[in-house]
């Protein structure tokens, strides 16, 4: 990574921190504390299941909101406020700016997720007073959530490179919802015929497959995640994010900054 990409990424991270984005951790900490105390009192033998389910779902939702709402402004805000002018008039290539912004937001989301993971494990320890080896799968669940963030961040950058922040948010959120049901979409495609089969199949493969990246329920039940799935999901997420990011760069390279 060139030093310019690193500097832009670091500045994006610094902006998120100073704009108090990480304050969501306070809400998350309160949620986990409340959940741990409540679950300890009302559930028998399923405390771990509830805490992992609730914890990882919260990590995913909090992160998605940050990824979408910060991601949509990463480029458009810089154009609107004209801060981009003094960056691109330097020896900074446009692709370096886009890639730097991506890494900056991805870094913010990773730091946020790691902090939240500490909260999840603390709640887990509170309700069961010990850790089990199967709790390690929670980390895989968390890793898959981070892979989802990479995809969503690259998509918001792609959308914000050609549309307004509001439309970018709508597109990104819609794709997140549709992608979460992509397995159902594939099932629907297999049941239909003719042109609708083609359309459903194309849609199922075009939208990001968040279903395959969601193992929250599985790891909450302490089921192991296969190494093959980890490799496949990693390759898939990196490929998808790279493609979306390349699209964002291609569009941004041609754009006039009026």
């Amino acid at each position, binding site marked *: 990574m060139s*030093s*310019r990409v690193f*500097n*832009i990424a670091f*500045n994006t991270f*610094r*902006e998120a921190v*100073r*704009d108090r984005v990480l304050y969501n951790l306070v809400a998350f900490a309160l949620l986990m504390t409340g959940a741990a105390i409540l679950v300890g009192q009302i559930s028998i033998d399923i405390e771990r299941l509830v805490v992992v389910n609730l914890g990882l779902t919260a990590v995913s939702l909090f992160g998605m909101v940050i990824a979408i709402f910060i991601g949509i402004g990463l480029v458009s805000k810089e154009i609107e*406020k*004209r*801060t*981009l*002018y*003094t*960056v*691109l*008039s*330097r*020896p*900074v*290539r446009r692709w370096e700016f886009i890639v730097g912004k991506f890494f900056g937001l991805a870094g913010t989301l990773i730091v946020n997720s790691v902090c939240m993971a500490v909260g999840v494990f603390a709640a887990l320890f509170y309700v069961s007073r010990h850790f089990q080896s199967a709790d390690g799968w929670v980390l895989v669940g968390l890793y898959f959530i981070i892979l989802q963030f990479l995809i969503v961040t690259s998509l918001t950058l792609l959308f914000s490179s050609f549309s307004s922040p509001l439309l970018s948010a709508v597109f990104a959120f819609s794709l997140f919802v549709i992608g979460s049901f992509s397995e159902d979409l594939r099932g629907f495609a297999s049941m239909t015929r003719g042109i609708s089969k083609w359309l459903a199949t194309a849609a199922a493969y075009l939208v990001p497959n968040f279903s395959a990246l969601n193992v929250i329920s599985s790891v909450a039940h302490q089921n192991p995640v296969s190494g093959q799935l980890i490799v496949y999901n990693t390759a898939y997420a990196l490929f998808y994010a790279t493609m979306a990011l390349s699209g964002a760069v291609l569009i941004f390279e*041609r754009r*006039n*900054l*009026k």
Partner: protein
Amino acid sequence: MAAIEIQGLEKTYSVGFWRKKPKLALRPLNLKVEDGEIFGFLGPNGAGKTTTLKMLMGLVYPTGGTAHILGMELDDPRMKAQIGFLPEQPYFYDYLTGRELLEYYGRLSGVDSKTVSRKASEMLERVGLKDSANVQLRKFSKGMLQRVGIAQAILHGPRVVFFDEPMSGLDPMGRREVRDLMVELKREGKTVFFSTHILSDAEALCDRVAIVHKGELQGVGAVAELTSSVSSRVELIWRGTVVPAALQGLGAECHVTGDTARALIPESSQDAALDALRRERLHLVSVMPVRTSLEDYFVQKLRPAQTMAGSRA
């Protein structure tokens, strides 16, 4: 080698949603700025100054023509490491302090991490922001933002500096300081290209100026060269409130203040005007040639276009 060489640079935007219509922002522009000069790019608002600067900075792509800075293409990173740019009404990352902003821009310009902190301190002192170095930019006044904007443009020691309306929003002292800074930059051997619509600033500073209006170059040259093409005028002052009717016929602009009358007339009509005053037995106080300013040239160049536009309306 010219610092900036522009050949036929033009820009047409497409406006409209369904039926795109071309909108001309800049007609083919040819311009050469020599190394080490202060060059003023003048014109009223909407003349095409900012569009030209944005094209030179690679922010907007030209629809025709080419331009070279320091002999290099506009997208060459080696060239961009040697230029500085202050946009019009600059806005910076307001969550950063002045020092952080300069260090960030310094690193992006390729200044190594060992010297960037020292350079940032030097620049903050140079633009008078030493005491506000660790204050976040969101607490800066407009004038302070302009100063930090100038600092970021010259921090990395560029050979060519581009300023877009650098005096806008500054108080008289601030304007004076920016003017002094430009002179210092010239003394250091740098080329300064700045756009403005404040003609007195350009007149005081520039080795040469170019005037654009409605996307078209109207004239280029040294201020003295341009103003010499404007017909000279003479100011006559006499006692009394009587204005001879003959003066009106000579194209004079007459004003009466108290018990003194004053007329501005073309130099070629001076003898006829003096004869008219003698015939009326008026007491002449003074005859003074009026220095032709850049403003006179500017008005002369722009007036026909505006008059035509007015008559069409």
